[in-house]
C-alpha cells in the first residue's frame, strides 16, 4: 500500500560553521586581553555588567540541543571523544591505594578487549593518593588530577587550603581541582573569592587549575555566569560545575551558561578556558548531549580534552558498552566491561 518517497537529493545539512572562515579558530576581538582586576569595586561592576541569563530561555535552549540525534560515524567518534575527556574519579573516604591502582589501570586501557579504545584524560583523587596514582600512571598520557582546598566544602582557612594545594602538587598532581568559596561569593565578598583563586593559582605552579563553582549552591544562572567570569579573571584554566557531593550537580543548562562564558571570555580576552561537567553524568546519551552543547555553544575548539572534561566514574562503563554496540551491532553484556 505504501509508496516510496524520494529522499532529499544532495542534502547534507550544512556543516556547522562556528566561526566564519576558520572552523577551529576562536577569533578574539581586536585589542583583546584579560583585564587586570585592581579592586573589588571594579570586579563587582565588571561582573554586574555581564548580561543576565533568562532561566527559561537557557533551559529551553539546552532542551532543544538535547534533541540532536547523533548517528553512525558521528556517534562512534563522539563516544571515543567523550571517553578521552573523562576524569576518572574516586573521591570517597574509603579510597585505598588498591582502589586507585585498579582505577589507573582502567584509565590507561579502559577496554582490554578493544585496545583502540582511547585512554581517559585523567584520574582524579584526593591529595593523599596522588603519589599512588602517579606511580600507576607512569608512562601513560593519563594525567593526575587532585581535588584540594578543603574539598568539597572549602570551609577551612586560606593557609590550610594553600597547604592542601602545595601537598597535591608536590605529590605530582598535573591538575588541581579547587572549590570556590561559595559562602564568600553569596555574601558578596567577591574580592576575597578572587584573591583566593589567585593565591591557589600561584600555589599550583605548573599544574593546571580547575575551579569548581558548585553550581548547585550558587543556584541561579546569573551567579553561575558571574562566578565563571570571576574564576577566569583570576586565572582558572578550567571552570568546573560541581563537586559531585551536593544534591544538584552538572546540568545541561548550567553547562550551557558556562560554555557561553568561556566563549565570550575567549572572544574578549583571547584566552581559552576549559569547562568540566562533573557529577551525575552516567550515560552515553547524557554525555553526547553535553558534546552537542559544547559543539554548538563554545564551538569545535572545545571538542578536545584540553578544553572539555567529564568528571565521572560510572560513565566510562556505559561509554564502553555503547562503543561495543556501535562496533558489533549487538548489545554487550555489562560483565564484559570491568568494574570501577
Amino acid at each position, binding site marked *: 500500500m505504501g*509508496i516510496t518517497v524520494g529522499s*532529499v537529493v544532495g542534502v547534507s545539512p550544512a556543516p556547522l560553521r562556528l566561526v566564519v572562515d576558520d572552523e577551529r579558530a576562536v577569533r578574539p576581538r581586536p585589542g583583546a586581553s584579560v583585564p587586570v582586576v585592581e579592586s573589588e569595586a571594579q570586579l563587582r561592576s565588571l561582573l554586574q555588567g555581564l548580561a543576565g541569563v533568562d532561566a527559561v530561555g537557557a533551559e*529551553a*535552549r539546552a532542551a532543544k540541543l538535547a534533541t540532536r540525534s547523533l548517528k553512525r560515524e*558521528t556517534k562512534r567518534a563522539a563516544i571515543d571523544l567523550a571517553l*578521552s575527556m573523562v576524569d576518572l574519579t574516586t573521591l570517597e573516604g574509603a579510597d585505598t591505594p588498591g582502589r586507585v591502582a585498579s582505577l589507573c589501570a582502567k584509565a590507561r586501557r579502559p577496554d582490554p578487549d578493544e585496545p583502540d579504545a582511547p585512554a581517559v584524560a585523567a584520574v582524579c583523587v584526593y591529595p593523599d593518593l596522588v603519589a599512588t596514582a602517579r606511580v600507576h600512571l607512569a608512562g601513560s*598520557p593519563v594525567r593526575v588530577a587532585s581535588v584540594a582546598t578543603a574539598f568539597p566544602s572549602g570551609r577551612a582557612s586560606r593557609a590550610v587550603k594553600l597547604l592542601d594545594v602545595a601537598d597535591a602538587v608536590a605529590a605530582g598532581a598535573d591538575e588541581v581541582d579547587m572549590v570556590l568559596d561559595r559562602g564568600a561569593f553569596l555574601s558578596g565578598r567577591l574580592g576575597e573569592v578572587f584573591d583566593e583563586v589567585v593565591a591557589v593559582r600561584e600555589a599550583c605552579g605548573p599544574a593546571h587549575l580547575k575551579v569548581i563553582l558548585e553550581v548547585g549552591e550558587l543556584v541561579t544562572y546569573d551567579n553561575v555566569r558571574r562566578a565563571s567570569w570571576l574564576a577566569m579573571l583570576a586565572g582558572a584554566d578550567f571552570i568546573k560545575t560541581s563537586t559531585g557531593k551536593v544534591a544538584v550537580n552538572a546540568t545541561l543548562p548550567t553547562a550551557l551558561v558556562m560554555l557561553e562564558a568561556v566563549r565570550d571570555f575567549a572572544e574578549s580576552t583571547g584566552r581559552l578556558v576549559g569547562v568540566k561537567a562533573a557529577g551525575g553524568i552516567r550515560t552515553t546519551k547524557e554525555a553526547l548531549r553535553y558534546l552537542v552543547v559544547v559543539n554548538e555553544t563554545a564551538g569545535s575548539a572545545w571538542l578536545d580534552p584540553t578544553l572539555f572534561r567529564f568528571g565521572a566514574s560510572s560513565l566510562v562503563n556505559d561509554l564502553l558498552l555503547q562503543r561495543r554496540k556501535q562496533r558489533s551491532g549487538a548489545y554487550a553484556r555489562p560483565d564484559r566491561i570491568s568494574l570501577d
Partner: protein
Amino acid sequence: MDERPASTLSALEYDPAPESAALARLRESYGLFIGGAFVEAHDGATFETINPATEEPLARVAQAGEADVAAAVAAARRAYDKVWRKTTGAQRSKYLFRIARLIQERSRELAVLESLDNGKPIRESRDLDVPLAAAHFFYYAGWADKLDHAGFGPDPRPLGVAGQIIPWNFPLLMAAWKLAPALAAGNTCVLKPAETTPLSALVLAEILQQAELPDGVVNILTGDGSTGAALVDAALDKVAFTGSTEVGKVILRRLAGRPTRLTLELGGKGANIVFDDAPLDEVVEGIVDGIFFNQGHVCCAGSRLLVQESIAEEVLHRLRRRVDQLRVGDPLDKNTDVGAINSAAQLEKIRELTAWGEREGATRYTSPCALPERGYWFAPTVFTDVAQTHRIAREEVFGPVLSVLTFRTPEEAVAKANNTTYGLACGVWSEKGSRTLWVAQRLRAGVVWANTYNRFDPASPFGGVRESGFGREGGRHGLEAYLDV
C-alpha cells in the same frame, strides 16, 4: 609522557539522522470527507500534493467543487439539527478527549506526514505541531460540559454550522485550533485545509472516524482557493479564516451584508524589541525562534528586530554567528533546524521581497549554508540598515528573512513597533520588569512575549488587532468565537 593522539573530531558534523518516510503511511489518493465517509469529488476532479523538499508528488487529492461544498454543508447542517445539538456537553467532551488520545497514539505518523507535505523540520512537527494539536483537543474537551460557567451568561448556545479555512503553515495544528473549540461549543464544521498541505487533515478525518464522532459533525474538503470561496458563499452560521490579510478582506466584503459570524486570523509584521539590559544569549535564541522557526512561515513571526542602538553591534555579532549554525536541509532529518519553503509560489514571493530589500538599500546577510539541489529552499537571511519605509520592514515576507532596525529610547521602540497596519504579536526583551510591562501596555498587538517568542498554548488566547484580524483562538476567549453571545 603527555603525548596523546590529536582529537578525533574537528567538529561534530552530524551524520544524517532521517526519520523514515514510510511512517507516514502515505496512500496514493485521498478523497473528501463528507458525512462521515471518504468520497470522490462530484466531478471527479483531483490535484497533486507534492513534497516541497523534493518537488516529487506525494499523493492525489480530491478537488472539491461547488456541489461538494453544498453536500458537505448539508451534511453538517443535518448533523447539527439531528444529532450534535442534542448531544450533551458531557458527551461532546468525551468525543474530544477521544480525538486527543488518538492524535497522541498516531503522533509519529502525523509528524512525518506533516513534514513531508509541508516541508517543516521533523523536530518541530514532532515536538510542537502534533503535541499542541492534541493538547488543544484536551483543553477544549474540558470546556464542552462547562459552558454555563465560561462567563458568557447562562446557557450559551452554539452558532450552528461553521466553515473553517486554514493555512498551510501549521496544517494539523490549525485544524485543531479551529475544530476543537467549535465542537466543544456544539457547532458542526466544514473544514478546508490549504491546497498545498491537505494530508494531515485527512488523517485527522480517519481519527474522527476512529473516535466514532457522529457522521457529518466534521466534514473536510480539500481544494484550492475556489473551494474556499464556495465555502464562504455557502449557507453558514460562522466563518473562521486563518490566512493572508488580502484574502481576509475579500471574505469580510463577501460576508458584509450577511448575518454570518466571522473571525479572522490574518498576517503580521511582529516587532521583537531588544533593550540594552536584555539577557543576550537568550535574546539570540529568541530572535532565531522568532523568525526562523517554521522557515518564517508564521503569521506572528518576529520579522522586525528592533534593537537598542547601544547594543546593536553586539547583538548582530552574536546573531550572525548563530545564523551560520542553523542547519538547513532535509525536513525529515532530526537535526534539521530549517526545512523547505512550502511552495514554489511562496519561494518566489520571498525572493521578490528580498530583492526589493537589496534594491532599497538594506544590507543583506545570508547564511553560507549549502542548499539541496532540488526542492524549494531559502537560506536564513538577515537585513541590516533597514528603514521603516522599506518594503521588507512593512510587508509580511512569510519566510526566513529578518529585518533589523534600531531605536534609542523605549518611546521610540514602541512607536516603531506600532508603525504598521498589522497587530498580531510582539516580543520584548529586558531584565527590567517595569519597563517590560510599560512597553507591553503600549504595544498594539494581540500577543506580547516577554523574554521569549513564539510560544503557544491551548489555554492562551491568540489573535490579532487591526489588520491582523479579530477574534481569539485558545483559552476561554476562544470559545466566544463559536457561541452566540
